[in-house]
């Protein structure tokens, strides 16, 4: 089931030519369709009696929820109180964050008689959320990140929008006390709220391009120029593609949050206000139609928190298999998010692992002026093909599966395992033609079995080499980052082989082992390739300055047609 929030923001910013009319338009259109909204109230609004009355009236008459908007702190009253133009709470020092939150919460209570249950940020780190939950137990759900808002968006906005929160889950989850981007292992690890994203994103375009052009936000879609006036098939296809994710997940969260400014005259690039409003209304109609036919349920943010608490456990993996909507290709992208990691597998690249965020490291990342990360709230990757040309792929007798695109399907097993099944690919290797199928089996305990099977061969007696290659690095952006000190090791039966990475192009190798691994100290993470194949060969290479990657190889050397080899990928 797709659970949908319609979220509106009410602001009062005297620094821009602000009028409440577009917001009232949004509210009225939602209510005409019988849809409840979550109305997020900004600080300055709390000082305007008429606006406060309007909010209360909307809530009492239509059942709308009133929540707190802290996405962009702005306004005359805010400036008077804060004495700063800093509008991003997550970039303030912790003590200043507490002062701001307390002021916002107390003003909200003074206006409405209760503390907000729902709060919106663009991104927020764990320490202040923990403090908020302790001080205000009613607080139960927060908009906490913009999925994959980072490098591509930064480039697209001419390096002026300094919000970096790549690497998070894309849906609703229980955030960890150690890092708000990581799904909690259990109740002890959890902050105690439900985290939801700022908008749903196109799960292909967010990886290969800008997350802020292709989302559940009608004006974003106009920014991406996907519409033709008030016609936009993409809005419908996008919603349907999200609905499909219900096949893999018990609850799929969906929201739309369009700031009223986008629906005001002259505020949306080349678009007319009439088209912008028409498209917004179509968005609401999509919700209504799907709710009427039982395929979606519209609720408030706080109501969704209760639904999530009822339906979703801590150890539930979140799955997304996304099909290209816009470019007319067969391309798909697979995502899996769980407490230990977030993994992205690209069938277009033969099933290469193209993005891997090792949440198991539980790094404490708290942006701010006193922080070593400063602006970057992104959870670092241990490999990323787009940013750094680093991925996990497989070679069959030297032929790289990366160069052979395929498609995939997902199967959920009864025991909780998840299988990503790739369609077989045909390879020409050493004067023979073979069909190879890959399956990624994500076990309930988090281990990943990479299964490769040579289904058939034009030379049935020939033996093949199946080589799993993990080319790793570490980072959050596109420039190389230092992984010096990464410990590479192989559990050779005669004694462990190891080296500490220092860019000297050294390697270690063994024909008598079962595991090759690396411990990346900067990520507090260990990644291993493990197999029971007694004929496997292992290699680990540290890389060098011009090619700053460490590489782990597990090579199965005697694989015949009809045989399957399994390599376990373990992240801890």
């Amino acid at each position, binding site marked *: 089931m797709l659970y949908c929030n319609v979220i509106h923001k009410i602001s009062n910013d005297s620094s821009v030519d602000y009028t409440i009319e577009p917001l009232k338009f949004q509210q009225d259109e939602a209510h005409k369709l019988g849809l409840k909204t979550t109305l997020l109230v900004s600080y300055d609004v709390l000082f305007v009696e008429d606006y406060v009355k309007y909010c209360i009236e909307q809530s009492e008459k239509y059942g709308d929820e009133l929540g707190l908007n802290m996405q962009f702190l702005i306004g005359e009253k805010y400036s008077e109180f804060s004495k700063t133009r800093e509008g991003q709470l997550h970039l303030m020092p912790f003590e200043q964050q507490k002062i701001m939150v307390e002021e916002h919460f107390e003003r909200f209570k003074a206006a409405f008689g209760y503390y907000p249950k729902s709060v919106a940020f663009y991104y927020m780190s764990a320490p202040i959320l923990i403090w908020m939950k302790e001080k205000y137990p009613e607080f139960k759900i927060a908009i906490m990140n913009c999925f994959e808002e980072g490098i*591509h968006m930064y*480039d*697209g*906005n*001419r390096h002026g929008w300094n919000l970096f929160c790549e690497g998070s889950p894309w849906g609703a989850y229980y955030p960890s006390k150690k890092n708000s981007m990581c799904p909690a292992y259990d109740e002890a690890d959890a902050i105690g709220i439900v985290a939801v994203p700022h908008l749903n994103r196109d799960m292909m375009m967010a990886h290969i*391009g*800008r997350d802020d*052009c292709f989302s559940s936000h009608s004006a974003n879609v106009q*920014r991406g*120029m*996907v*519409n*033709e006036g008030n*016609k*936009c*098939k*993409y809005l*419908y296809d996008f919603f349907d593609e999200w609905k499909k994710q219900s096949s893999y997940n018990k609850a799929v969260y969906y929201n739309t949050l369009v700031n009223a400014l986008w629906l005001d005259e*002259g505020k949306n*690039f*080349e678009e007319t206000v009439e088209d912008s409003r028409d498209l917004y209304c179509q968005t609401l109609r999509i919700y209504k139609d799907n709710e009427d036919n039982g395929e979606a349920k519209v609720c408030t943010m706080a109501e969704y928190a209760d639904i999530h608490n009822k339906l979703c456990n801590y150890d539930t993996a979140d799955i997304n298999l996304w099909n290209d*909507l*816009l*470019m*007319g*290709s067969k391309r798909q992208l697979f995502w899996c998010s769980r407490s230990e990691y977030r993994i992205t597998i690209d069938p277009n690249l033969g099933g290469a692992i193209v993005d891997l965020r090792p949440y198991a490291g539980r790094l404490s990342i708290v942006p701010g002026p006193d922080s070593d990360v400063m602006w970057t709230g992104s959870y670092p990757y241990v490999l990323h093909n787009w940013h750094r040309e680093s991925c996990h792929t497989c070679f069959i007798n030297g032929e790289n599966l990366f160069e052979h695109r395929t498609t995939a399907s997902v199967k959920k097993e009864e025991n909780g395992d998840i299988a990503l099944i790739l369609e077989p690919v045909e390879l020409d290797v050493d004067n023979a033609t073979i069909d190879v199928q890959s399956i990624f089996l994500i076990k309930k305990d988090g281990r990943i079995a990479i299964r490769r099977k040579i289904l058939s061969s034009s030379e049935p007696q020939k033996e093949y080499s199946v080589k799993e290659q993990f080319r790793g690095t570490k980072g959050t952006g596109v420039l190389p980052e230092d992984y010096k000190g990464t410990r590479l090791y192989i559990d050779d039966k005669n004694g462990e082989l190891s080296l500490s990475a220092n860019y000297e192009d050294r390697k270690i190798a063994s024909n008598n082992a079962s595991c090759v691994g690396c411990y990346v100290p900067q990520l507090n993470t260990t990644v291993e390739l493990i197999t029971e194949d007694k004929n496997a060969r292992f290699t680990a290479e540290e890389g060098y300055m011009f090619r700053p990657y460490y590489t782990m190889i597990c090579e199965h050397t005697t694989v015949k047609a009809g045989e399957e080899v399994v390599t376990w990928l373990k992240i801890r």
Partner: protein
Amino acid sequence: MAENKVIRCPECMRRDIDSELFYDKKDDEYYCRLCCYSADEETAFGDLKKFKTEKYKSYKYSK
């Protein structure tokens, strides 16, 4: 003479960059501050439409 309208640079859009064109009243021309693109209003809008058509050529706009 064209008014100062909001038009994004078609060349920058090809690189996924939002860059609004500036208007030169003297030359009655729109120009980009990031790249070397410049054109009159009709050409600029036409180029933007061309970009859109090419980028999403495999996709149908209307429902």
